[in-house]
């Protein structure tokens, strides 16, 4: 079971993510409404995984990702970026900075499970269609 911090300014997305994660057997230990809250809550709660929306007020997800990566051990920081914006530059930047995966909205339980399975193979489901790095590059090119 993973300890997960959900970061999203949308309360309906936070509720939806919480439902999906609980159903997948994980524990939601915190919810943040913007990047600034996420940085603080990450230090305090030390989650196994963060789901981070990119477009948020106060501090966006990419800036929060940068701050978290700067202050934490990159190997122990598992962040999945959530975005509606499918332009490859934005996603590639986040992956370069240190995000371990991304989900293109609309979110679904299957997409979330796929992304988690890629980072944590013990949660890989036979039904998951997990992309490796080459496939991801192909998709983004």
């Amino acid at each position, binding site marked *: 079971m993973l300890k997960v911090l959900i970061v999203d300014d*949308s309360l309906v997305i936070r*509720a939806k993510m*919480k439902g999906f994660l609980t159903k997948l057997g994980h524990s939601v230990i915190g919810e943040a409404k913007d990047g600034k809250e996420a940085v603080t809550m990450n230090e305090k709660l030390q989650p196994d995984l963060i789901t981070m929306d990119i477009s948020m007020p106060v501090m966006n997800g990419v800036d929060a990702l940068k701050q978290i990566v700067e202050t934490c051990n990159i190997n122990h920081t598992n962040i999945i970026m959530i975005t*509606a*914006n499918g332009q490859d530059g934005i996603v590639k930047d986040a992956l370069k900075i240190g995000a371990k995966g991304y989900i293109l909205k609309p979110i679904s339980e299957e997409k979330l499970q796929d992304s988690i399975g890629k980072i944590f193979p013990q949660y890989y489901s036979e039904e998951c269609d997990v992309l490796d790095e080459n496939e991801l590059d192909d998709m983004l090119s």
Partner: protein
Amino acid sequence: MNEEVKVVHAYTKDLLVPIIRRVKTYLEEEMKIDVFNCSEIVYPKNIHLKRNTIMIGTSGSIKLIITLGYDDLLLNKLVEIFTHGDNIEDIDTNEVKNSVACEISNTIIGNAINNPIDNSDIYITPPVLVSEAKTLYKDKDSKFVYVSLVTKYGEIQLTAVGPKEQFEDELEFKDI
């Protein structure tokens, strides 16, 4: 004497058509709501926004304000479908409604946004709710575009506002 050469990019059609198409596919594929009709794109002098309107701006090499307005009945249906199975009993109904409108608008515009000028990334602002009906009047240097998509629960109104040089003289667009 060197004359200043002004490069004019008219790209509204290339930018808006994918958004119109994504409104249709989002409603039909994600929400299972058929779109019966799409109006012609028109350039009105003013726009009366619906009571439930979400505003999203773009930045980068393209600067536009895009709004998506929802009829009440349609938005209620979208809320019902979107939140099905979610634990939201403790949250205020209006907050849920606004949040769903913001989320759907953000997903539609984010999924469809592209850059027909130079392929550089276009960033979109977090969605903003315009909570009551408002009328927008255009300035001489700006232009409005308006199109509506009709479902059995009501319509979605899509508008874009920006500097007039961004807009083609005629869009002649009807087919989605």
